[in-house]
Every structure is written in C-alpha cells, then in structure tokens.
C-alpha cells in the first residue's frame, strides 16, 4: 500500500497486487464495497475494536479498473497517516484512530493481556494495549494529526488522549500530571484521572494535539460522577437481591 496523494482530509492509497485492505466504511465516499458478513481478524483485539466501532469493516482489493482507494475523513481538521511496518516493527495504535489496515502473513492486531497488571498501561488509559505487528500497513486518522520526533526532553511529554500511535519498542514513563509536590497539586492529581507520558529523546510519535481548555475540569467531574453513580446502582442491585 502506498500513498498516492494526501490532502487535508483525504488520502488516496494505491493497493499492491493481491493486497486486501480493511477500513472503516464511514471513511469511504459512496460506500460501493458493502459490509462483509464476517468481521476481518475476528480474534485480533476483538473487544477493543468492538468498543471503538471497528469490529466489522469494509474490505477492498485491488482491481485493474480501480487500483486506488480514497478515504475521506468526517472532520475538516482531520489528517490521515500511513504507517508501514516491517516484520520486526511493533506499533502501539489507539483503536479509536484506526482507519484502515492491511496485513501480510505474520502481521496483525494483538491485545497484550499480560499488561493488565501494569500501572504504566493503566496510566496511558490502555490497560489492555493494542499493538500492531508487522509486516503490513496501518492508516490512522485524527484531528490535526502530525508526526512528532522527540529531539529535546522538554518536548517529550504528552497526555494520554493526544497519543494516536507510537513505536512500541520505545520506552516511556508515566508521571503525575502536576509535577510540583504541593498538597493542592497532589489532591488535584489524585482526583483528575490524567497523567503525563514522557518519551525519551529520539522517539517518533503520531500525535493529535487535542487540548480543550475545560478538559481537566470535565475529567474531574466525570471522575466524581462515576463514583456517585455507583451509589444508586449498588443500592438498586442490593435491593433487588
């Protein structure tokens, strides 16, 4: 799979011989391919794909009369990125940003179940991270998506929702959102479910710089609401039993 052209919110992909691409049907204008019966790779990260709406995908193969697949994003600020993987490559990809993929033998999506007890994976909001194994190619889509190469330590910190994909072989470190140790900062750190992810110099990431000004307040409210909502739920269940 190669990128023929890429504009703001549109990407044109040229498919190789005998290559089969699976992609979100919503990204195809006209939807001429139809939805297949059976989802592709039914055992490749099924829960994550189900949650993020890419369990059942459309399928496209190269045809002589139409060797190009054009994908259109729903957002005016959207950008596509093609990540080409060799057999040794491993990439962490947020399933929400997965737009299309095509794997050869040995490649695929894998959920790392063993990371469930890793604090760092909970810290990046992916207790069961989805890692893409090569060989193959993955297309990711996000608003204002860009490739960030970390050259200075000061550039290497992101919040989890900004991360679209990164090389899984690169080490990362999860730290509290507010680095100062004042009691107020610590209380805010405890209440707001967000962290900083620190990458080492040399790492390459696909980043979507979403940072809504009310985002942290909303997370604080959501965090409190989750625990408040649990109270009536527990009461209802206990009364029913």
């Amino acid at each position, binding site marked *: 799979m190669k990128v023929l052209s890429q504009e703001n919110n549109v990407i044109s992909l040229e498919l190789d011989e005998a290559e089969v691409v699976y992609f979100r049907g919503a990204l195809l204008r006209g939807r001429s391919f139809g939805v297949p019966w059976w989802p592709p790779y039914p055992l490749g990260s099924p829960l994550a794909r189900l949650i993020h709406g890419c369990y059942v995908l459309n399928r496209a193969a190269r045809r002589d009369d139409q060797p190009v697949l054009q994908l259109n994003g729903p957002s005016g600020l959207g950008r596509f990125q093609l990540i080409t993987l060799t057999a040794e490559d*491993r990439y*962490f990809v947020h399933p929400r940003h997965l737009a299309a993929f095509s794997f050869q033998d040995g490649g695929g999506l894998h959920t*790392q179940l063993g*990371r469930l*007890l*890793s*604090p*760092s*994976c*909970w*810290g990046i909001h992916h207790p069961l*991270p989805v*890692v893409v194994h090569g060989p193959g190619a993955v297309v990711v889509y996000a608003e204002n998506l860009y490739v960030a190469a970390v050259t200075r330590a000061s550039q290497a910190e992101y919040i989890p929702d900004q991360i679209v994909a990164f090389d*899984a*072989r*690169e*080490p*990362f*470190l*999860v*730290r*509290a959102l507010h680095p100062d*140790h004042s*009691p107020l900062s*610590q*209380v805010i*750190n*405890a*209440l707001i*479910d967000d*962290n900083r992810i620190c990458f*080492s110099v040399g790492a390459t990431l696909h980043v979507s710089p979403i940072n809504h000004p009310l985002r942290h307040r909303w997370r604080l409210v959501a965090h409190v609401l*989750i*625990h408040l909502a*649990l109270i009536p*739920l*527990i009461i209802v*269940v*206990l009364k*029913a*039993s």
Partner: protein
Amino acid sequence: MRPGVRSLLVQAGTCGALLLILLIAQALLIVHLVGRLHALGQDMAALRARYPAGVPDAGSLRCATDAIDQELGEHLYPQLHDLGVQLQAVAVQSQANAQQLHLLEAQLAADQTSEYQPAPTILPHPLDWAAYYLRDIDALNVRIQQGRSLDGALNARLNHLELAEAGMKRQISAAISRKDVLAAMAGDPQALADLRSRWHGLGTAMLCLEHLGLVLLLAALSLRSCFRLLILLGIPGELRLA
C-alpha cells in the same frame, strides 16, 4: 530524614488519603457483594432441596389443595368424629363405674361400722340370700377391687383417646395450614413464577451477573486507584510495550 523520603511520605499522605478511602469503601463493597453471591447460591440450593422435582405450577397446586380437602373430608374428620364418640362412651362408662364404686365403698364403710351378725343357722329365704351375700365384707372388697381396676383401665383408655384426639387435631390443623399455603401460592402467579425462576436459577443467574458486574467494576476501580497511587508516587519505571 532525607528530603526525597520526606517528599514521598508527604505525597503518600495527601493524595493517598483520598484514594485509600475509595479503596477501603470499594473493598468493603466487594466483600459484601461476594457474601450476597454466596447467599444467593445457598438460597438456590435450599429451593432445590425443597422442590427436588421443580416448583409446581398453579394447576398442580390446585390439585394438591383438592387432595388435602379430600383427605380431610374422607379420613381426618371422620377419624376425629370416631375418636370423639369413643371418648364420650368411655367417659360415660367411667362415670358409671365411679358411681358404682362410690356406692360400694359407702356400703363397705357402713358394714364395717355396723355390728357383726353371725350367719343364721336357718337358711334365709331365697329372696334375702342376695342381700345377705352383698353384706359380706369380703365379697364387697373383691367387687371394690374389680371396680378400681376397671376405673384404672378406663382412665388409661381415656388418656389414650384424648392423646389420639389431640394428635388428630394437630394433623388436621397442619393439613389446613398446608392447604392455605398452597392456595395462596396458586393464587399468586407472580410469586410462583419468581419461585420457579429462582429454582431454575434464571433469576439467580441474573442477580449473580449484576453482582459480578459490580464486583468487576469495583475491582477495576480499585486496581486503577492502586496504580494511580503508584503513579502519583512516581514508582513505575520505564516500560516498553514490545
């Protein structure tokens, strides 16, 4: 104290307090929910033991109620009636015997206090012979002994019959209460369906699922809180996903 250790302790004290409260509450809820799950399992086992062939439906409950009615009408009430008749007859017999015994004892007392009269040399008139014989103290004593033993036997029989009557009344009241319970069950299809659902385990399974869902949710929240505490303390090191 080294500044790093002190800073770690301050952080653990400030941010850990909030998370620890959450953790303790979640752990208590998990323990409680697991206890409820155990109780639900026991309830289902008890229902299975009580209704080994399944919870009956309204039709078979009505049949059972009719059977109890039939048993009451054909066996229990007639037996109670027979017992009452027997009891009354024995009581009358006992009363008559007691009266006769009383008379004999009075006669014996009168004879013992009257002056002894020797047997006549001339045989008495046949009509007086019986009177003469009755006056004989030995004969009176024998009759009194017989009367007392009969009284004892009648009393024992009376006690036995009374006990049998009380047992029969208990049996009848148990049958009536059983009939009432069955009629109430047959008249409440919702409760019957609930009981059947609990017996089959469908209702229990749904409750178990709800409980398990809550337990998993709370466990996930607890785990997240634990890991969050570790992250706030800066404990996790570098990680490579591959």
